[in-house]
């Protein structure tokens, strides 16, 4: 018995090679992407809403008003489309997984630090890419918008990185609310914020007061960057980048604090 025991004695060491550690991060991101790409309940609304709005306002109704309107609305609806994988992909899933015990389970496992959040972030970035590609396809084919390759690349980059402040906001809301309450709460943030940032109708068409407070919303700043990307806006971009960066940092900090404290 003794010899048998020592023979099969567990030989696991707790050391983890850097390669396996990187592998764990990649597996986490891959699983996160796979599970949401396979969930039509998540992907369909995220993709179809901006595409439908763009078709309606940017293509059909803008036909008589020239390509500039189509181009302007491409930028705005890209921002509208990019917000939702950030807010919902991050916020709703975090709220549900805190409720359903998955987060607890993952915290008990030796998952490398940050892999969970990093995985969700990459998933949101992937979903944002898909949304923008879809809008670009609509704009270039049906909307008769012309863009240079640099402009296309700039819009993609704006979207893929622009999703991150909304991930941070979604994450914060996900730590405030558990379970099924989160989607409703996030809609209450998502839709009014989109409207008040001039994503549905250009800002100059909105009441004076809303125009004045628009710089409060992160989506306003991302819209400025997206407009610049498609060549509809001149002027300094750095202030907008900094505001978005600060916004992301503040909410990420608040959210990680809450997660650490309340789980």
């Amino acid at each position: 018995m003794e010899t048998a025991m020592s023979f099969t004695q567990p030989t696991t060491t707790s050391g983890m090679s850097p390669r396996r550690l990187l592998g764990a991060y990649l597996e986490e991101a891959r699983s996160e992407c796979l599970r949401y790409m396979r969930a039509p309940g998540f992907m369909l609304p995220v993709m179809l809403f901006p595409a439908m709005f763009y078709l309606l306002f940017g293509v059909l109704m803008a036909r008589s008003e020239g390509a500039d309107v189509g181009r302007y609305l491409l930028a705005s609806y890209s921002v509208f489309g990019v917000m939702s994988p950030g807010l919902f992909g991050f916020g709703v899933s975090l709220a549900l997984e805190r409720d359903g015990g998955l987060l607890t389970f993952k915290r008990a496992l030796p998952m490398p630090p940050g892999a969970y959040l990093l995985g969700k972030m990459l998933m949101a970035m992937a979903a944002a890419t898909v949304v923008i590609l879809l809008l670009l396809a609509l704009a270039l084919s049906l909307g008769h918008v012309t863009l240079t390759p640099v402009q296309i690349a700039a819009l993609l980059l704006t979207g893929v990185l622009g999703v991150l402040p909304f991930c941070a906001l979604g994450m914060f809301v996900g730590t405030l609310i558990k379970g099924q309450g989160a989607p409703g709460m996030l809609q209450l943030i998502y839709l009014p914020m989109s409207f008040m940032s001039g994503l549905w109708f250009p800002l100059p068409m909105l009441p004076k007061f809303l125009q004045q407070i628009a710089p409060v919303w992160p989506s306003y700043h991302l819209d400025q960057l997206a407009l610049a990307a498609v060549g509809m806006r001149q002027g300094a971009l750095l202030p907008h980048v900094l505001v978005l960066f600060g916004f992301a940092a503040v909410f990420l900090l608040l959210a990680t604090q809450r997660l650490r404290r309340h789980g």
Partner: protein
Amino acid sequence: MTHSDPVIARLEVAVKRYGRRVALDGADLAVRRGELLALLGPNGAGKTTAIGLLLGLLRADAGTVELFGQDPQRIEARRRIGVMLQNAELPPTLQVGELLRLTASYYPTPRALAETAELAGVGDLLKRPYAKLSGGQQRRVQFALALCGRPELLFLDEPTVGMDIEARQKLWMAIRQLLAEGWSVLLTTHYLEEAEALADRVCVMAHGRMIHEGTVEALRARVARKRIRCRSALTIDTVRGWPEVSEASQDGERLHITTADAEIVVRRLLGADAQLRELEVQRAGLAEAFTELTRDADEASNADQREAA
């Protein structure tokens, strides 16, 4: 199993409060290498809190919590454990094989996928999305996730809830196989037969403390009661009148008697009814032992509260 085996998970006078409620009130627990320790206790006894401390999910307000001699919140300590929690909703759209691959990636030297699948009996489920599985199959997958990292210590929280008898037997066999290979298990369960079938030692909790720790045998012995069953024409009132009988019930002509002095009661029974048939005497099961222990603890705790009031 000897007392010299090293302790790999330990609680020492651990205290955990949630606001004014004390969930753990100086609890001690030690899991030794190579053993299966069953943690028993009624709901609200503090089992989940004790497990939560050992997994690093919670921080103790006082006392010592150690996993392989380290703080369980250190990832190095958790790389040596496998976990099966009572209610964790896994990603519904991921396939079983994908879940195994992901969980195995967290560990330094995991088992091969095929080996894990074989041990946990999920080989035929690898391509199925998690959400399409039955409750029992999902539990098996969760068991597979617990052992895929080749952990030295398994935490199994109510592992067989929702399983049919056959699936439960299979899981027990897999657990015995792991124990034979020298792994250790901390099991919480409501099924006392599960503890009886698997455990080297049993730890009973009530009101945030350990009220009994020892072998299954010792727990049974602590409660000296025996069960007597027979068919007899005697009335229940006659039997209840005997001073040695602590409880008696009747079901048709079948009598169930609980007593601390089985020999005396059997002699009385045979003397009073020459026609008595199908006589059976049994030592109380873990269930009775357990009920009695926790009832004592309840009374003690109530007495404390009365004194405090």
